């Protein structure tokens, strides 16, 4: 599309104030603050999610092994068929999930170290 010379020239004439010299410094302070907030939220979310997964694993293990805690009534009784399938597929699944959770914790731990180093700096 053809660009009008007159409009281009007129658009260049409209004065545009420049940003204050300390704009970038102020922006970077806000950005750093936001980065910390974002990481904190991420860590909290990961911890909550991990705790949820762990609780699910513990509950699954209890169901699989048909542990009967005297004081806890889980309210679910498995029939023989379901119990067999749970043993067949449950153990490998629990193993994989446990590995994933462990990996998540390790990653989180490394990240926490990085943040601590950054704060120290």
């Amino acid at each position, binding site marked *: *599309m053809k*660009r*009008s*010379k*007159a*409009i*281009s*020239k*007129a*658009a*260049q*004439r*409209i004065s*545009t*104030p*420049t*940003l*204050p010299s300390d*704009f*970038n410094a*102020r*922006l*970077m302070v*806000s*950005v*750093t603050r*936001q*980065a910390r907030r*974002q*990481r904190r939220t991420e860590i909290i979310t990961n911890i909550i999610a991990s705790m949820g997964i762990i609780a699910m694993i513990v509950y699954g293990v209890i169901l699989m092994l048909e542990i009967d805690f005297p004081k806890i009534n889980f309210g679910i009784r498995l029939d023989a068929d379901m119990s067999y399938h749970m043993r067949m597929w449950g153990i490998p699944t629990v193993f994989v999930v446990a590995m994933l959770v462990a990996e998540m914790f390790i990653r989180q731990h490394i*990240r926490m170290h*990085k943040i601590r180093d950054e704060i120290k700096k």
Partner: protein
Amino acid sequence: MLHNEKELIKRIAEGETELFSHIAEHYAQAVHTLIIRIVGSEEDAEELTQDVFLRVFENLPYFNHKCSLSTWLYRIAYNCAISFTRHKRQQYLQIDENRLRLVDDVEVEQIEAIADNEQKLNALARAIQQLNAEERALVTLFYYEERSVSDCAEIVGQSQNNIKVRLHRIRKKLYILIQDETK
């Protein structure tokens, strides 16, 4: 364009926050110019520019490189500024649709004749400032920043044909405004 933009974005997303200052230094003034031309107020523009860069930082890990970083940045700036003006309900000059329809394409070409006339160029600059926020944004992007129609379409979120039609309408509007001022 920044040198090795992809690498820079990757490193920022991985936690090297301080590298974001390169993006800010490179694009802040251009983004501020676009915003100030849309919202019209210097104070609001500075605050909005800061908001835009914070949003960019927040969403940088999700940037998919389908367009350039500058186009993506401009899109965020455009959306922020336009929603701000909508919120403020600024009033702009309205031109009667019938009047716009009556302007001939050949007539509009006469606008080119004022390219060397200092006084009329000033009048044209004033006319640009009377356009509505979306039109001013398009003038800034297409005529001031000299972005292509496809870039403008990407930033504004409309089809290329739509942008062409709107740019044509803007020329008609500016022609009418110049005519009115010289009368």
